[in-house]
């Protein structure tokens, strides 16, 4: 079965992105497909490569990046939500005249249309938020 996953909260503050990770991993290990994970609202903050959590805490960005690499999942960060919250890739930084970018490997920035498309193409949509 094809699943779409929507993540509405950032790492650490709420459990949502962590629950979504475990769900996605279990879906893949149980023979389902997860074509895309869409990060919206504060969920975009999952995709920063600048976080440095304490050694004894998990690094959720790295876990997502690794899972995406292993299973070829499309991790999409909403551009509108990302702009508000200061999440940028190299192109966006250039376009907005910003001197730095912070997006992590395995994530890409795109429009809200990708969320709707995910809803249309998936058999099931599962939402994790606050």
């Amino acid at each position, binding site marked *: 079965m094809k699943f779409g996953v929507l993540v509405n909260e950032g790492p650490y503050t709420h*459990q949502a992105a962590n629950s979504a990770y*475990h769900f996605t991993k279990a879906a893949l290990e149980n023979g*389902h497909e997860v074509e895309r994970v869409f990060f919206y609202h504060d969920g975009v903050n999952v995709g920063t490569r600048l976080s440095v959590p304490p050694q004894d805490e998990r690094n959720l960005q790295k876990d997502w990046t690794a899972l995406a690499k292993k299973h070829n999942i499309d991790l999409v960060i909403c551009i509108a939500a990302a702009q508000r919250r200061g999440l940028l890739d190299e192109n966006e930084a250039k376009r907005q005249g910003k001197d730095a970018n912070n997006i992590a490997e395995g994530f890409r920035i795109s429009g809200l249309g990708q969320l709707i498309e995910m809803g249309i193409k998936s058999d*099931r949509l599962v939402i994790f938020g606050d």
Partner: protein
Amino acid sequence: MSTLHIVNKSPFETINLNSCLNHVKEGDSILLIEDAVLGALAQNKLADNISEKLGEISIFALLADLSARGIGRDRLISGIKTTDYAGFVELVANNERTQSWL
């Protein structure tokens, strides 16, 4: 034609579970994850409201979240089932749609 309702907030703190219970249909399932698993504890003040619904719908609590909060399986409201992440995936697959009560 059934729905899997996913609730993630403590029913002692927010109305999400209550609002969900007000909108479920016979044959639906509710999965309690994250802080919502607190509502599964026996003898809590909402336990009777929850038990009442158990004839009509199924209620599951995610084991990983129960364990994290120190709630043993033997402490749950009678009739509430437990499941792991793989079971969560199957609940999603076996219901026609999911609705998250955020």
